[in-house]
């Protein structure tokens, strides 16, 4: 390729400049800030003191624990449900496929704040969900006012928002599995369930990895939902790392400590993504 030498540089210049100013600089500045402390009107080097403070901060541990509980309850179940729905919708026999596909995807186009508020209304003690549950003989569930149920509420809301989205990802991948693999398997006498585990899942490995990493990064940064649906409560039972960064940074204006929490999230995302790569055993 022989072309004008300057041209490609001109074309990447806007992206590079914007990246340096608004992404690279803040990422580095926030790491730097996490080793500083603000005292008497100026910042000074504080070594690891923000990080050692984290170790003794019970709210931090609670936020970390909550984030993991939400992650473990939400991501695997959602991905399994998404895969089951995708398999059903991929079946040749089914009518109204397009209609179901669009309907299931619809929650994914709502804004995070909007659906969180919608759920905060649906899940009130005397809200419609409890009213409907009462009608079939189930007593009121304290969705938002009990530490356990508040977590479940966040998980349910997130599943509502994201299952269809992941279903579409899986559906696209399923359509790339050649039919003859299934035909060969059924000639060999493998049932539907057997086929699902021996053909579908192995073929979907890379895409499961992709969806898994997206969900991991998303859950570790969870903010909009707990902020709007439960306000982190009751009693910090839905406090997440994202919410804790916000509180430290913009309610207590402790920028250094907030940055330290943010860097814990950075490290966790890196570790978990690496782990997922290993587990799914992808070379690329």
């Amino acid at each position, binding site marked *: *390729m022989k072309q004008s030498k300057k041209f490609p540089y001109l074309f990447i210049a806007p992206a590079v400049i914007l990246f340096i100013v608004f*992404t690279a600089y803040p990422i580095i500045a926030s790491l730097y800030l996490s080793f500083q402390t603000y005292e008497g009107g100026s910042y000074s080097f504080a070594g690891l003191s923000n990080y050692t403070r984290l170790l003794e901060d019970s709210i931090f541990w609670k936020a970390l624990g909550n984030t993991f509980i939400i992650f473990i309850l939400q991501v695997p179940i959602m991905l399994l449900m998404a895969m089951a729905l995708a398999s059903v919708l991929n079946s040749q026999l089914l009518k109204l496929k397009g209609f179901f596909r669009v309907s299931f995807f619809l929650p994914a186009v709502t804004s995070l704040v909007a659906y969180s508020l919608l759920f*905060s*209304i649906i899940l*009130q003690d005397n809200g419609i969900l409890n009213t409907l549950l009462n009608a079939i003989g189930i007593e009121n569930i304290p969705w938002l006012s009990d530490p356990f149920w508040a977590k479940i509420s966040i998980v349910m809301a997130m599943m509502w928002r994201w299952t269809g*989205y992941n279903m579409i990802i899986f559906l696209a991948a399923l359509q790339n599995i050649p039919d003859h693999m299934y035909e060969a398997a059924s000639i060999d006498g493998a049932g539907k369930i057997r086929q699902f585990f021996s053909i579908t899942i192995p073929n979907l490995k890379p*895409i499961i990895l992709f969806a898994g990493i997206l969900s991991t990064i998303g859950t570790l940064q969870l903010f909009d939902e707990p902020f709007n649906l439960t306000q982190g409560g009751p009693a910090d039972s839905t406090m997440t790392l*994202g919410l804790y960064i916000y509180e430290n940074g*913009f309610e207590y204006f402790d920028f250094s400590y907030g940055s330290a929490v943010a860097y814990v999230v*950075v490290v966790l995302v890196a570790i978990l993504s690496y782990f997922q790569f290993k587990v799914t055993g992808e070379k690329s």
Partner: protein
Amino acid sequence: MMNTNKSKRGLGKVGMYALLLLFLVISIFPFYWMLVGSTNTSDKMFTSPPTLLPGSEFMTNLNNLDATVGIWRVLFNSLLVSGVYVVIALAVSATSAYAFAKYDFKGKNVIFTIFILSMMIPYQATLIPLFQMMSSYNLLNTYFALIAPQLCYPFAIFLMRQNFAAFPTELMESARLDGASELKIFMKIVLPSMKPALAATSIFLFMFQWNNFMWPLVAITSQDMYTFPVALSTLNGVSFTDYGQVMVGITIATIPIMIFFLVLQRHFISGMLGSAIK
């Protein structure tokens, strides 16, 4: 033998439809409830037996909402910020992606790798320094603060690059032999064939900005600069919440995007998933 097989399959089919129907109700009911809520007074959302039909209070709720947060101003802010953002971010992504896909230059791989790796860094890690930066230049509470920070969106660059890479280089070469300038080749030959990719990337960028919450929440404090998510979020949490208003707000934030989605389904889905998967 044949018979049991058939009825078994029939049963499987019934089960399949039952499952789909259940998920359909779960997916759609919250939207229906949003419509019921936005057209009724607040207390109707909490009665037993429930009010399951839309009422006629939509305009009252809308006027109340407007009195609380100035909803038309909020809508204007959100449309302006998202619109301007999409145009600039699309230009930034398309030009850089084109250079990455079709030219060889020093530093190309290093820069591209840094862009890709940065996608793994949570947005929240940039929030505090960004706030300090905007604050020290007195740029909080401006459209600039809302639009500028994510104009270089590496994932959008990644998407566009995939599409440019698939464009036949021979067509560019022959245009070069005909004496076309590099810029002309990009504008007149390559870009026109990229419309689906541009549409998908625009939708991706638009959805990001339209839904963006955490950054606007910290960058904006004055009510006349609120975007939709920030305005909606302020309606919640006061001691007395008028849920009729909240529901109207949710409806206005949701319905236009939904219509947009139903009309442009294909572009929308590839945009939201990242066209890496088609």
